Structures are given as C-alpha cells and as structure tokens.
C-alpha cells in the first residue's frame, strides 16, 4: 500500500511537523511504501526520496522548489496527484503519483484545520485523522468552546471577540473582560497552534498588549479565565465510533504555561519518563521530547473522569483516528477541557506505549482506521434522483405566462 506522508506546510509549526512526519515515516516503512510530500513554507508541494531523510532538513537550509520534483493535484476524470520533474524543460513530462492513502502530519493552519482534509475529500483519497468538521472545529478555539459548552462539557469562562471589534471598541472589551473574569487571564488567537500568540495577562496594561499580540495571528480572539495554581493533564484518544483513551500525562512546564519552546524544543535529557527506547526518537524527539510525567500523578478516579471527558470530546467534535485532548485542573480538583489537537505532535505515541501499543502498531492502526472511515463514507448515499429540475422548469414557465398576463 502506498502511503503519502504530507508534512511541512504554511504554518508556524512547520519544523515540528517535519519531526512528526519523519517519526511516522520510520514507523510505517516496515509495512508500507511511503512517499514523502513536503510542503514548503511558501506552499509548494515537493516530493523526492531525500525528503524522507531527516538529514535533508537538519543539514543547512530547508529544501527548496528548485531541487525537487513538484507535486500537483489534477481534477480530471479521476482526481489524482501528479509529479512534475524538477528539470522543467519545455518537453518535461508529468507522471502520476500513486497514492492509496494520505497520512497528514501537518500541525496547525493549512493542514490540521480541515483545509487539507477538504482537498482530500474532493479527491476521494482515504486519509488519517479527523475529517473537515472535526479538524476545523478542533483548530478554532472559539468554535470548539461553543460546541463543548452546548454539549455540557466543562470549559473555563471565556470572552470571544474580533480584531475589528477590538480596534473599534477596545475600552468596552476590556470592561467586559474585567467584569467577567479575574486576573490572571489567558489571551489566545482563535486559531493558532503550539501556543504561538498566546500570553498571560495579570493587569489591564498586559491585557491590552496581549490582545494586540494575538491580533497579529488571527482576526478572532478569545480571553480565558486563568486557573491559578492549576496544572495541565493531557490524554490521547484513538478510534472512530467507540474510541478508547490512553494513559494521562502531566506536562512539566518551566514557565507559567506551556509555550512553544516547552512543547517542542526541550529534548529528552530531562524527561522523567518517556520513550527513550523508541528506535526513532533520537535527538529530534519533537513533542515526545517535552518534559512530562507518565502516568500523571493524579488519583485514579480523576484519571477515569478525564479519560471519559476525553472520549466524549473526541466524539462530540466528530474526530477520527487519533487526537490529544488537553485538560486544565484547578487546585480543588475541577477539570476543564482546554484544547484538542487532531494531529497531535508525534501522534502522541508516547501515551500509547505504556499500554503496549508500539509506534509502528499505532500508525498501522491509524492507516486501517482511515480506510475503514473512507469505506463507510463511500457506502453513504450522495445522489438522489429527483425531478426538481423539470419541476423548476415548469414553474418557470408558469411564472413567465403569469407575468405576461399581468402586462
């Protein structure tokens, strides 16, 4: 089976995606043929064997369009991927790229947000992970909270607004925030990954700067009530209709909250317990290299509660395959759903290993789930014979004769 791993992309999490993709590729290679498709920061799709090697990315500059074959998508009789050879002479020939299933390994916008999933739906190619709705709602913190709130899942109080509203009535917005929340609060762009553009504010001045900062990354902003002395617990969920939850982890943060550096840059050296024996983590451990406690040192009933909330969140947001759900826990034990990652860093494999699921098993499982989901979709009815058009034609004729009478 040919699996195309798509990674990179026009997202601030470009580099993280490269690490995740190479972990996936290494885990898939034994059982599948893997084609790397790398999307440059400019949005150009490239392929080539060297793009499957991590050293191509770590030694010097990132690969550029001049050095690799370009991947295009064609919507002819059957939508498909094609490859334009890098030597673009006048007579260079396109060739078809044989892809049975796509494994998106892109974090953040233009990949994890439903856009790539939309393209793959139009192409009718099976793909790993959540579909359009799950991906886009999971990526949008305001939409996600609205949906979770509607379904009775616990979330911290939040105030959503747009950049446009901020620019025209910032004083009113500050008043509303200060009325409904107490400092500290967190300011977040509605759409961003890896805590980029997220900051904590402890007073009005910091709040205003934090909102301006968030406005640089998104036109919709939310301010959330901070949980003092709280901590974060993450849990992964896998499956389709009856998903299962993994062990819980507690990320160990060096600052007030998990910033981009904590999430992706810290290496394995200080990890309390993680998958050091995994053959593919090495020095580029990505999300697997962040500092964490597995299992999280929380009471068993809280673990069960969190696992239940994680599975419910997964189902309500229409997720597929895998996701990581991040929770906030206050010092009095209140649990809140905080965020969902539908393409979690390193696909959360370190949360499945304690249950005896190796990374190669995990990715094979995800490939199977993707095929199952695609088969299910193809059994649905998409066409329905109707005489709507002929009816419309008749109505139009009636209308015309009616208006002629009136004249």
């Amino acid at each position, binding site marked *: 089976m040919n699996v195309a791993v798509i990674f990179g992309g026009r997202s601030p999490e470009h580099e993280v995606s490269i690490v995740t993709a190479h972990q996936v590729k290494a885990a898939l290679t034994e059982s599948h043929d893997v084609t790397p498709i790398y999307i440059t920061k400019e949005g150009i799709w490239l392929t080539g064997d060297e793009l499957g090697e991590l050293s191509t990315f770590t030694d010097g500059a990132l690969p550029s369009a001049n050095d690799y074959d370009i991947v295009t998508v064609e919507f002819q009789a059957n939508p498909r991927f094609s490859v334009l050879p890098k030597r*673009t002479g006048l007579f260079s020939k396109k060739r078809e790229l044989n892809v049975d299933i796509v494994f998106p390994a892109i974090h953040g916008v233009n990949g994890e947000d439903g856009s790539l999933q939309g393209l793959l739906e139009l192409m009718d190619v099976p793909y790993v992970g959540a579909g359009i709705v799950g991906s886009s709602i999971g990526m949008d913190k305001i939409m996600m909270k609205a949906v979770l709130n509607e379904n009775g899942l616990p979330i911290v109080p939040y105030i959503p607004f747009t950049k446009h509203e901020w620019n025209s009535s910032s004083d009113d917005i500050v008043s509303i925030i200060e009325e409904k929340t107490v400092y500290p609060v967190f300011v977040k762009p509605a759409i961003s990954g890896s805590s980029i553009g997220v*900051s904590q504010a402890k007073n009005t001045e910091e709040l*205003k*700067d934090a909102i*301006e*900062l968030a406005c*640089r990354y998104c036109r919709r902003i939310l301010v959330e009530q901070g949980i003092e002395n709280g901590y974060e617990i993450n849990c992964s969920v896998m499956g389709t209709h009856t998903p299962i939850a993994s062990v819980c982890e507690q990320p160990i943060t060096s600052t007030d909250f998990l910033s981009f550096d904590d999430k992706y840059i810290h290496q394995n050296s200080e990890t309390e317990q993680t998958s050091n024996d995994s053959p593919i983590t090495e020095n580029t451990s990505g999300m697997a290299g962040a500092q964490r406690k597995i299992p999280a040192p929380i009471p068993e009933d809280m673990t069960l509660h969190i696992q239940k909330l994680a599975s419910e969140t997964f189902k309500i947001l229409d997720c597929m395959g895998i996701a990581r759900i991040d929770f906030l826990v206050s010092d009095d034990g209140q649990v809140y759903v905080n965020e969902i990652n539908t393409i979690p860093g390193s696909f959360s494999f370190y949360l499945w290993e304690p249950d005896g699921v190796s990374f190669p098993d995990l990715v094979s499982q995800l490939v199977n789930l993707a095929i199952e989901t695609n088969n299910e979709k193809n059994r649905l009815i998409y066409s329905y014979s109707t005489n709507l058009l002929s009816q419309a034609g008749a109505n139009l004729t009636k209308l015309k004769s009616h208006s002629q009478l009136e004249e």
Partner: protein
Amino acid sequence: MGRVKFIEIEKLKIAYQVEGTGTPVILLHGWGAEANTFSYVFDRFSDTHQIYALDLPGFGLSEIPPDAWDASDYARIISIFFEKLNIDKAHLIGHSYGGRISIVLAAEQPEKVDKLILVDSAGIILPRPMTYHFKISLAKIGRLIRKCGALGKRLADNIANRVGSSDYKKAGLMRATMVKSVNQNLRPLLPKIQATTLLIWGENDIDTPISSGKIMQDEIPNAELVILKGAGHFSFLDKPKEFCQSVETFLA
C-alpha cells in the same frame, strides 16, 4: 528578551520590547528581520542600559506601512517613538536597513542621537558590477516575454527566479517600499552626522561590502571602523561576543 508591547504611531500598531534601566539604547533591525534577531545583544545590554528593540513597520509583529516608504519615513516613525516613550536622547544601533534609518535620524535630528553604531549598514549606492547590468537586461527581456502567453509566463517566472535578489522576491506587500528605499542614496547625509560613530562590519559582507563602511568612515566626521574577521552581513549574529565587546567599549 522581554514581553512584547505595542504602541500606535500614525495609526500603525508597532511592536517593541524594552528591558533594563540606564541610558536608552535603540536597536533597529535590517530588511526582512525583526527585533528578535537582536536577542543576544538585547539580553547582554539590558543589565547596563535601558534597551529597546522594535519591529519596524512591515516586519515582525508590526503593521505594514500604508504606502511605499523610504528610510526618511521610518526615521519619522522612530522620532515619534522617542517622543511617545519620553526618550530624549538614545544610542542607536542600526543593522543594514536599520542603519539607513539611523543615518537619516542622526543627520536630521542630531539632538536625539547620543552615540551611533552602524552595523553592516546600507545607504550608499556603490558602482554596479557587470553582473548587475546583465541581470537588469535579462529582467527587461523577461518582462517582454511574459506577455507572450502561458509559455512566455513560465519562461519569465524562471528568469525572475534567477535574477531577482532574495529580499526582492520575498518582499511581497513591502516590495514598493524596498524599491523606493534601495534607490535612496544617503551619502550626502554622512557629513551632517554629529554623533560619535562606530562602524562595525563583517569581513565577508557581500550585501553591503566593506567599501561602504570605508566611505562612511571617511565621510562621517567622527567615525571609527571595526572589522569582524570571518563574519558576514549579519556580523552581530556571526560574532556575537566580539560584537558586544566592541559596542561595550564604545559606549563606556
């Protein structure tokens, strides 16, 4: 570096960071860069100075200028930045394009500039090498064949990729500002600079070659040139320790 703050100048939200107390020092980055490129320098001097680093309009977290600007427009913004933050006088450290802005400010508002440090600074139009004229001719041919259908467009794109500078290709909305700026010759302003000036150049700078630094050394009344061995256009990143040492001695 510090927490990002914002200030509104001429309806543009401008991001900056400030740390420390003492004589103010303002860091002005180059084309395509942002305040964070100075993080080493910023942290090093925040113990002894009140250090400011801002994202120039159109870069980093700051909003894009409404039309094509040149270094004089940027200098005007910096001057307002001084006033809004009650900075009477500051040392300026300008790299590359930030050097251009520093030159304009030092020449036209000398009362605001304490000491001036120009790092691999732009601002002088040097005689063009033969390759420049060759590339310009190719670009003109490219513009003509772009009009000849799809094939012409493909060939023209190919030419544009080969002859355009990487800054120009990446400039996007800022392209007009870039074109306006690089054609602005600041050489006549050099004799007007009253501040004591330190010029720091990377030995292997090919973007703003040392010959620019030498012209500045000759034409700025009170200037001294330091060349960092083995460093390129981003000399403060290539040799951060040596760079900071030179700055420290100069500011002492």
